[in-house]
């Protein structure tokens, strides 16, 4: 197309041949230090865990809809694999429900979305976008992935140890976490320490890369918004994860060395005073957990917002509106997200002063989110919108994140949280942000960058089928949960809440859960299973297209402006033959007076 690309194509090809001889299969695919290979490794592993986490939930949804009934087909399988004490007769015991619930949360957050949104997309795309040859520390990058694999192996193995995986929720509140006398929690903690190490190494690498390896002319204000989002995300991981690591070490000490960091004096276990020194504080765990926990939720959403921004600019064919506000907003989110954590703890016994502080910061942090969404919305105005599959997914992201974010408000006010805390309203709130929010943005990203990675397009038609089915069913899954939650249905109930409706039938109880609300469980579960089926077009499309997708005819099939499309497809080791020179901002689409409707960042 344009001369620079051809040239780099050539030089890079020579480069690659040169390397082919040196690198055996192991070095090239398993112990690779190339950011692109590592990105792909993260991507495949992350998608596999996304699928796995979803499967856990599909089984749990059976128990919620039909408590105490044997799970058809999978029940006997579970019994065979995990033992009849936890899945006797193919019925999911409370034990197993709690394990699956804790592991669904853990796997989705730490083993699926962070590796996908941050590590996979970040690794593959960020160095390309800033015109760098690789990450700043390629071997650290490899160690980060290996640490992640180790951590996830430990997590997976924990399902099969006696007593099964951790059962105290993804939040692992002490004393429950340490008082369950199986080893699941120990595995969880050790696994988490590896995962945290992985994230820390990744974060150091990302920040150093973005600071040091930007191509000439790539000033801070010319960075694509995706890079900004990853930059802030990396800082969140870097500084919020260590306190959880510290807490993890302390809980591990509580568990294996019988210390009492999180165990108070006078704790009793089944009627006997526990043989511990006491003197610890259960709330300390919660503070340290949520000090990570809240920044973590922005780790889940910021990369997604970055993806959304890239795809919107590309498919409206015009600059993103308010680039500067976006950058300042994302920085503000980064800062403030460290001082809002206790909004998860309003009902742990908080006085007016401290809860006022935390709800004020919580309201303040919602403003930059509003600004980011506003910028995205206004960017649509005046565009020439192309509705391809990636665009559909990110367009759906906007209202879906909107619902999730807006329902954060009644939770953020402590006064309304009194009613909503620990109900399905919370579940619905955050799933709207992470599932039809983050996951949709990730789907968009997969469809969008697939041709860069493989040289082939994914099938559009099946992509659209995937989109519409997913959109419909995911709303059918999570929308009813708002109603259930508002009506008072509590989360983490291994019987789907039937205890309330039974109580009501016992006669005379006021304010129990109505049968209609309980019955919604069945609707939701069916929608969830349908949502599972709706992923089949995606999975098939994904693998089929790697070999058989339509070949791209250009290195820049979406006619984008940013640098990742200025390399050969797929990019060779070292990415660019010469470091590109950058002349302008990232979203120069439809510049008046230019012949094409996109002006490359590195076009003189």
């Amino acid at each position: 197309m344009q001369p620079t690309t051809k040239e780099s194509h050539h030089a890079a090809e020579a480069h690659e041949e040169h390397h082919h001889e040196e690198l055996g299969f192991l070095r090239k695919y398993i112990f690779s230090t190339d950011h692109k290979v590592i990105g792909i490794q993260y991507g495949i592993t992350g998608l596999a865990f996304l699928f796995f986490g979803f499967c856990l939930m599909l089984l749990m949804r059976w128990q919620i809809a039909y408590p105490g009934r044997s799970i058809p087909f999978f029940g006997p399988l579970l019994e065979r694999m995990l033992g009849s004490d936890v899945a006797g007769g193919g019925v999911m015991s409370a034990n197993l429900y709690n394990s699956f619930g804790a592991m669904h949360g853990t796997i989705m957050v730490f083993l699926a979305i962070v590796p996908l949104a941050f590590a996979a997309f970040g690794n593959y795309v960020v160095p390309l976008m800033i015109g760098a040859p690789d990450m700043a520390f390629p071997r650290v990058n490899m160690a980060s992935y290996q640490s992640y694999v180790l951590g996830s192996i430990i997590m997976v193995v924990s399902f099969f140890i006696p007593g099964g995986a951790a059962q105290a929720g993804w939040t692992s509140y002490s004393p429950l976490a340490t008082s369950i006398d199986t080893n699941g929690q120990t595995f969880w903690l050790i696994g988490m320490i590896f995962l945290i190490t992985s994230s820390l190494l990744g974060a150091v690498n990302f920040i150093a890369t973005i600071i040091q390896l930007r191509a000439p002319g790539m000033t801070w204000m010319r960075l694509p918004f995706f890079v900004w989002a990853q930059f802030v995300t990396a800082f969140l991981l870097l500084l919020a994860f260590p306190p959880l690591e510290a807490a993890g070490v302390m809980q591990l000490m509580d568990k294996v060395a019988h210390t009492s960091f999180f165990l108070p004096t006078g704790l009793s276990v089944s009627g006997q005073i526990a043989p511990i020194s006491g003197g610890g504080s259960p709330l300390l765990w919660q503070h340290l957990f949520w000090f990570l926990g809240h920044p973590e939720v922005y780790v889940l959403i910021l990369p997604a917002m970055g993806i959304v921004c890239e795809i919107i600019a590309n498919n409206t064919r015009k600059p993103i509106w308010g680039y500067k506000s976006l950058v300042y907003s994302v920085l503000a989110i980064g800062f403030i997200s460290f001082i809002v954590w206790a909004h998860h703890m309003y009902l742990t016994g908080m006085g007016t002063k401290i809860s006022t502080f935390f709800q004020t910061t919580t309201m303040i942090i919602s403003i930059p989110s509003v600004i980011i969404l506003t910028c995205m919305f206004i960017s649509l105005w005046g565009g020439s919108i192309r509705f391809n599959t990636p665009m559909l997914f990110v367009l759906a992201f906007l209202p879906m994140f909107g619902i999730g974010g807006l329902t954060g408000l009644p939770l953020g006010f402590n006064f309304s949280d009194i009613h909503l805390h620990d109900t399905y309203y919370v579940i619905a709130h955050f799933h709207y942000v992470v599932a039809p929010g983050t996951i949709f943005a990730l789907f968009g990203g997969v469809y969008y960058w697939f041709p860069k990675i493989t040289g082939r397009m994914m099938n559009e038609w099946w992509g659209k089928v995937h989109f519409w089915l997913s959109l419909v069913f995911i709303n059918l899954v999570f929308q009813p949960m708002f109603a259930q939650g508002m009506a008072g249905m509590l989360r983490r109930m291994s019987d789907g809440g039937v205890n309330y409706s039974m109580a009501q039938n016992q006669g005379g109880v006021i304010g129990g859960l109505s049968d209609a609300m309980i019955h919604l469980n069945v609707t939701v579960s069916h929608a969830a299973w349908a949502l599972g089926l709706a992923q089949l077009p995606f999975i098939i499309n994904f693998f089929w297209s790697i070999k058989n997708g339509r070949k791209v005819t250009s290195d820049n099939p979406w006619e984008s402006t940013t640098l990742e499309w200025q390399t050969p497809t797929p990019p060779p080791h070292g990415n660019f033959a010469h470091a590109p020179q950058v002349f302008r901002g990232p979203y120069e689409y439809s510049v008046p007076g230019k012949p094409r409707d996109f002006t490359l960042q590195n076009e003189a």
Partner: protein
Amino acid sequence: MQTEILPYIVEPRKDTGLYNAKVGIWLFLASEVMLFGALFSSYILLRVGAAEGTWPHHLLNIPLGTINTLVLICSSVTVVMSWASLKLNQWSKYKFYQAITILCALIFLGIKSFEYTDKFTHYEVVLKNGTSMTGHVEGSPLFLNLNKLKAAKTESIGFHPDAHASGHAEGAKGEAGGHGEGMKIATADITKLECFGPWHSTYLAIYFTLTGLHALHVFAGACVIFAIWGPLAGLWKKDPERYTNRVEVSGLFWHFVDLVWIFLFPVLYLL
């Protein structure tokens, strides 16, 4: 080498004035600040939250702690001197200084493990009649407790209670060896026998966690410094600037470890 495609490995980037590894190590140290910071905060919280009079004072051996502090400070200065030597192109001086650093690390860890062993052989025993004593068990067994005694069917133990000199340096003196006459205690009379391990009290829990984590850092730092000093020294001939950078970066980590100890020492030993 695959990494050679990267810029700014040796020379600093113009606008930031830094080479890559320096940015990397400072970022890493920032995360370490948060790690130890969280443990410090926990220490303070547990301390403030402890019921009146339950926080033990002067359980640790102050002279040993002081020596260890001095050892670490020495190692810190030799690290920075070794880097300066490289800058001045004095290879053998570098080798010498860094050897002292590694030696200091070993001394530190040696003293630390001595202190640990001391805690693991120091016992609290509570008798059926309610008296409670601290002291040493005959034969200095590690991690003894009542269950183990019973399992081994031991009838009685020899016990040397600490001399209860009142006032400040009670614990320190007691451990240094000056305990009183030995006595025999029948296993049947004991309700609790526990060494001063992390499970003994919240104070010891945080002491072992903080110093244990710190000791791991000392160990890791020493390994890295040793690797650069020994096996990887060949780089000095090939690319002296890059080698010097490595020494600087590992040195930054080492200083940080020293810095953590500067806070740990007064907080754990003296307060």
